[in-house]
């Protein structure tokens, strides 16, 4: 088996220059989101963030589930996996553990991540694997044309709750904090500059980063739209919030009314599973290691069977 290096040399490929602007992170496909969709701001912020961090496209794996926002990897110049509905986190976990040198960024929506994939969020948080998870939270199911989501507010009328939602919305931030995520933030897609900083810090953070992003659906959610958010958004950094104080972080995350906070709610330096795992200790990604058993390993296994 040849290595990538020799493959590249063999066929004389050297396609990639270092990115010179965020535009170099534009993908093959033009986004098919609705005009004015909040997700454009998220894609824009992500492209700026990786550019500013000096990461090259081949060093990134963007993993998504299914939904409008999960189409993002196709619009982003990096390795990508557009996986099953709700399953981006386990796929990303496997990919990160298989090659822990990759910057693995996970993108998706509130239905994908907090609904069908909710179980994985809890466990990915406690596992504290070094992923950066961007959830474009629009409080609605957009791709299926407007049903209630796990973050839709109580009483909200949607196609599947025509008489109003009876259920309480999930709070992804307090859930993530309580379950052990080590970088928990919220952004707003209309504030690209602020969101870019959150994403940069999330990528640089060694552990599981959840960045929940208000990314309004202009087509199916007329309840929580830009008009709703604009006057309410407050930045935690302006409030003097201390991100190491997880209890204060939870309180701020619960605020929902005239003031709704964005920024970094909680961060701590608990080691990530990929840094704790002895199997990765020698630094070489699992995917690049020789296959099979050494003679010594083989005879040891057999001797224990005797």
């Amino acid at each position, binding site marked *: 088996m040849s290595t990538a290096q020799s493959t590249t040399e063999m066929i004389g490929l050297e396609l990639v220059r270092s990115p010179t602007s965020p535009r170099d992170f534009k993908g093959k496909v033009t986004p098919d989101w609705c005009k004015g969709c909040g997700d454009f701001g998220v894609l824009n912020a992500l492209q700026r963030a990786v550019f500013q961090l000096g990461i090259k496209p081949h060093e990134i794996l963007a993993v998504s589930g299914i939904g409008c926002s999960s189409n993002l990897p196709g619009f982003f110049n990096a390795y990508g*996996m557009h996986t099953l509905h709700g399953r981006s986190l386990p796929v990303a976990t496997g990919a990160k*553990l*298989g090659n822990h040198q990759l910057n693995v960024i996970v993108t998706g929506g509130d239905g994908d991540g907090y609904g069908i994939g909710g179980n994985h969020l809890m466990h990915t948080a406690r596992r504290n694997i070094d992923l950066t998870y961007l959830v474009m939270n629009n409080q609605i199911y957009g791709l299926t044309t407007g049903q209630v989501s796990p973050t839709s507010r109580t009483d909200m009328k949607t196609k599947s709750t025509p008489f109003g939602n009876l259920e309480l919305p999930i709070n992804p931030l307090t859930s993530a904090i309580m379950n052990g995520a080590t970088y928990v933030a919220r952004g707003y897609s209309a504030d690209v500059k602020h969101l870019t900083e959150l994403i940069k810090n999330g990528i640089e953070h060694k552990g599981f980063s959840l960045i929940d992003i208000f990314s309004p659906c202009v087509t199916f959610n007329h309840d929580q739209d830009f008009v709703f958010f604009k006057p309410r958004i407050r930045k935690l950094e302006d409030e003097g919030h201390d991100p190491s104080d997880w209890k204060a972080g939870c309180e701020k995350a619960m605020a929902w009314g005239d003031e709704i906070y964005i920024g970094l709610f909680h961060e701590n330096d608990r080691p990530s599973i990929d840094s704790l795992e002895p199997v990765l200790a020698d630094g070489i990604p699992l*995917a690049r290691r020789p296959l099979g*058993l050494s003679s010594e390993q083989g005879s040891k*296994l057999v001797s224990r069977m005797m």
Partner: protein
Amino acid sequence: MSASGLDLTIAIGGAAGQGIATPGNILARLFGRRGLHLYAYNAYQSIIRGGHILLTVRIRDEEVHSHGDGIDLLLCLNQDTMDRHLEILGPGSRVVYNSDTIQPAEVPDGVLLCPMPVSELMGDSKNKLIQNTISLGVMMSLMSVDFSVLQEALELLFGRKGSAVVEENVAMARAGYDYGDASFESFPVPLPEGDKPLAMWTGNSALAMGGAAAGVKFYAAYPMSPSTGVLHWMAQNARDLGIMVRQVEDEIGVANMVIGAAHVGCRAMCATSGGGFALMTEAVGAAAMMEIPAVFINVMRAGPSTGVPTKTEQGDLWQALGASQGDFERFIVAPKNSLDAYNTVAELFNLVDRAQCPGIIISDLLISEGTFSVDPDLIDLHPAIDRGALLVDPSPDGNYLRYANTESGISPRVPPGYEGFVHVVATDEHDEDGVIISDEFTHPHKRRTSVEKRARKLEGVSADVLPPTLEGPQDAQVTLVGWGSTYGVIREAIEMLSEQGVVANHLAIKWIVPFHGEAVDEILSSAKRVLIVENNYSGQFARYLRSETGFSANGHIRKYDGEPFMPHHIVEGVLDLLQSRAAIYVPDQEIIV
């Protein structure tokens, strides 16, 4: 008949918590070191304390293919064992039991009772499990094995626990041995010695070790009987072998993690049972669509639903065939025994790497949880590894297409992390470059091209999988067809039939997909009478055979009570069906466990 004629089946019965595993392990180790072949089946229940466990250990001095037909030496650790099994023992068999606490009811003719006065023999010992050690001594004397052999095995097993424990156990075993020697008639054939020591493993450890040898670097699982042994082996050896092992929140997570690790270039595997496999199946289709090679193991137990977690069945064939929506490419293979299971893992990894698709191994409780001897020289520790078109010859024009529409259908694969080959894979239908053709613009011609490209891969690679062949005389009176784990028991049944003057041959099916319909049809069409043997109610394989070949068998031998076939079940089934011409024979399970 073997060299010395040794064919001895020992059964140890008691309740969960009575420590059956320890004498079982000592016996297996002792017999293996002596070079004797062993096939052990443990009948148990989903309970931590109580219930009835019966560990059946059959030994021969030649290969042994099933747990046999009866019990020659029964060790009763409780009254319940005596009550359940005494009546089925035949002449010449021996029953060892603690006469302080256990009494036999009506003793069948010719059965030799070997009561042990345990409280007298144990003296001052307060160890409640010491009756197990005493009975090992008695059993060794019955088999005319020199005491030093047992002493050595006890020292090995209890060595870690310190000299006091070793001394107590050796002394108690000695007391049992001497008592047995003085009081009971030993078996007429003393326990022979084989040519060389044999290794012992379970089918689950064979599957796990097969993965390690094949280069598995990532293993994920959610515990589920009877597949959990694979997880335990992997977890135990992970650090030595450099394998990432993760216990995940559910089987959906398991399968998707495996896909993530496989996509970045690891050989990745997972094992579960039917219920867990049901949760994995959406991911199986995702692996096929994204063209990511990965191996999924389903260790079958009796279903449906939670079913009977500790009992065996071959009931998940159609689940494997129907695992995930849509038409897609995958291999499905049912190994026939533990060594075959070991070899199958590397073989399947090579196929799925070459065809860039998922592969499914169907095992069952009988193979996976059974303990078997294996000649260590037959374990290929360094199987051939063929990763297919991984990191070789990507598109030379500099425009890398992950799903290049090649003649073979195989598109050279470059995992994430390499410069110059950036691409996106998708579970949506996609074009050669990975761009999805499912949302904004669907395209019938591109869709057809993609479907056909993936199909060509499997056709090409499948050509290297050999068709099954007929074992035994061509012109046999009856042809027995089985799949997977029934291989051994059918083989033994055929030997027994031949002793009764019935000439039978055997078509053992291992590969479900690719299924060699033409070859199978040719063999069966020229057979005189075809009977299908399978461990399920509805004849899942018979139905599959008919769907693939149009061939309908003459009769069926089916068992679906949770217990595996014993050879005489099949012999009686063949004799009955040959005479009665009935369609189906269902044997009665005499040993109630």
